[in-house]
């Protein structure tokens, strides 16, 4: 029981991170029907920006929470700019091409960014200054670190903010309209290319936050850290129903839980396999996901 509760806490922490990444996939897919392979790399770039900024701010003598907060905001902004650049360069010229072309372009951008990170940051792990936030408290028999509290807190805050943005503001309304029907929304005066750009920026900001959380949680980042979490987060988006924001949050939490419990109770070597198996099973038996709408059978 003790072990179960401990795993539950870890699962929520990890699941929140996956949910943040999954949102980027689901929003982009919802609006231009593209699996944005480069999204995992944006997340890795966020992790790197986090360590770069936190180390620098910390060296300037700022208190830990200021470092964390500033690094979070700046890294989110950086990744938003990066994702918008990727979208402008590699996806926008292909708006009229076949979906296979855009997919390959996304794959190319993913390899490009990953190796760009490697060339500028080196091939080795880069350690986070985790000594900033140490310790934790015990709730009954379960050990909860302060870091986990921060991660869950920031994640929850971002998720609420995103929900407000999408469902309560004019911009959110425009985003939803563009996702539903690009032509019609253009007819009523929505600049769809600007909305698409914005969607990429928001998704990237969330991914950057996730990258920093993971860096803080595991204590290090690596240039290829985005690949496997990227697939897992995409699985989460599919599990929740691609294109659906609430679904992506739910799917992310579920995938995080499943991974942690599978690693704890079944086998930690095969923990990555479970996410892939779930992805395949969901696509085969329940292709619309938990909360998805019916999607028509269109080819690449």
């Amino acid at each position, binding site marked *: 029981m003790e072990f179960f509760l401990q795993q539950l806490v870890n699962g929520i922490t990890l699941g929140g991170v996956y949910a943040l990444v999954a949102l980027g996939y689901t929003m982009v897919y919802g609006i231009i029907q593209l699996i944005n392979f480069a999204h995992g790399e944006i997340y890795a770039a966020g992790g790197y920006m986090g360590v770069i900024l936190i180390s620098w701010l910390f060296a300037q003598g700022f208190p830990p929470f200021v470092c964390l907060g500033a690094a979070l905001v700046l890294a989110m902004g950086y990744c938003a700019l990066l994702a918008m650049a990727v979208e402008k360069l590699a996806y926008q010229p292909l708006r009229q091409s076949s979906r296979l072309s855009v997919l390959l372009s996304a794959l190319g951008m993913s390899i490009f960014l*990953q190796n760009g990170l490697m060339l500028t940051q080196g091939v080795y792990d880069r350690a986070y200054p985790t000594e900033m936030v140490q310790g934790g408290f015990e709730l009954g028999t379960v050990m909860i670190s302060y870091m986990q509290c921060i991660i869950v807190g920031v994640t929850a805050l971002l998720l609420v903010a995103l929900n407000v943005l999408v469902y309560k503001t004019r911009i959110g309304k425009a985003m939803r309209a563009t996702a539903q029907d690009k032509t019609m929304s253009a007819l009523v005066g929505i600049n769809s290319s600007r909305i698409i750009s914005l969607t990429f920026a928001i998704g990237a900001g969330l991914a950057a936050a996730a990258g920093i959380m993971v860096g803080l949680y595991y204590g290090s980042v690596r240039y290829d850290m985005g690949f496997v979490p990227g697939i897992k987060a995409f699985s989460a988006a599919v599990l929740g129903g691609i294109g659906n924001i609430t679904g992506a949050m739910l799917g992310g939490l579920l995938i995080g839980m499943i991974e942690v419990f599978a690693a704890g109770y079944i086998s930690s070597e095969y923990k990555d396999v479970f996410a892939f198996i779930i992805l*395949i099973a969901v696509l085969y038996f329940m292709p619309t996901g938990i909360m998805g709408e019916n999607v028509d*059978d269109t080819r690449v």
Partner: protein
Amino acid sequence: MTIRVSKLWFGYALAMAWFYVLLWPLLGIKADGLEFGASFAIWSKVAVASAILLGLYQLKKVGAFGFVERPAKVVGKAAGAVAARVPTWVALALVAAVAVAFPFFTERYAHDVAISVLVYIILGLGLNVVVGLAGLLDLGYIAFFGVGAYTYALLSVHFGLSFWLCLPIAGGFAAIAGCIIGYPTLRMRGDYLAIVTLGFGEIVRIVINNWMSLTNGPNGILGIKAPGIYWWNGKGFEHMLLNSLEQLYYIILALAVFTIVAVYRLNHSRIGRAFEAVREDQTAAELMGVDTLRIKLLAYALGAVFGGLAGTFFAARMKFVSPESFTFIESAMVLSMVVLGGMGSIPGVILGAVTLIALPEVFRGFELYRMFVFGGVMAGMMIFRPKGLWPAKRMGARSEERE
């Protein structure tokens, strides 16, 4: 006109400013202070290079290069006419002669590169069946290469089976693996297929990596035998192992020729037409009586067979296999060959394999930049030349072209 031009340069300035904002934090923020030199050095090079390219592009648009372009066009046309008069078989015979004579006038190192190129040609052609012909994006193709390699490795080490016997067995296993992977994915929409095949590829690698009792995990399998043949030594036939690079070169050359012929024949067969029909319009193909599910499964299985064959040779050539050789990056590399050369085009895929394997060998000093450039080229190809370097010819004429 002038407004357009200034708009273009305004966009250029904006893009360069944007680029610097993205580049500087990666290079310039250090724990001990901010620094601008390194990032500015890279940025200025990129800025100058892209300014020159943009300028050239504009001059070309205005027609400033007419004095070079017009004669070049004439010469190109004449060369094309001469080339068209040479029968195909002469050209093929020439290529074949060069390929056969290759080991006689080159060094060991060149043999090594040539063998890699030929292995990748087989892989590229195999993937081409799936992606180019049937239009199914497969991002886990290297898994079949791994299945082939491990099949031969295990059969050779534990049961001492010969290379030639294992070749069809490995092909068969790879085909079965292709069906297992293909079956659950075939009803999916195209882009889901991509991510699921990616997941499958990773599953195969993780299983190989962790199944210690069978595959020896990350340590890999050692002591795989080279291919052997019976050779006349004057008195009788003697079994001899083909260990030298030249001998291996001829084996892989034969396998590559077999693959090229097989894929060519497939291209022109009923099944090949069915593949293309499925690629172009699945619903229409089904209406014409193509059993789309079976055809797609067949595409997976056939593509996998070539992956398995290449894998068997790879194991025999390296005499060692480990899961490291079957990562996603390898799948991406094979895919970029197909994309670079031209999807569905046999000479295109060969050209792609030669370019992507042999060129980096020439520029050895830039080893680190290899995948970086690949990624950029892949995205760039999709934008500027989506049909590849050597595009596939369409079979037959479309009604609107016939007029």
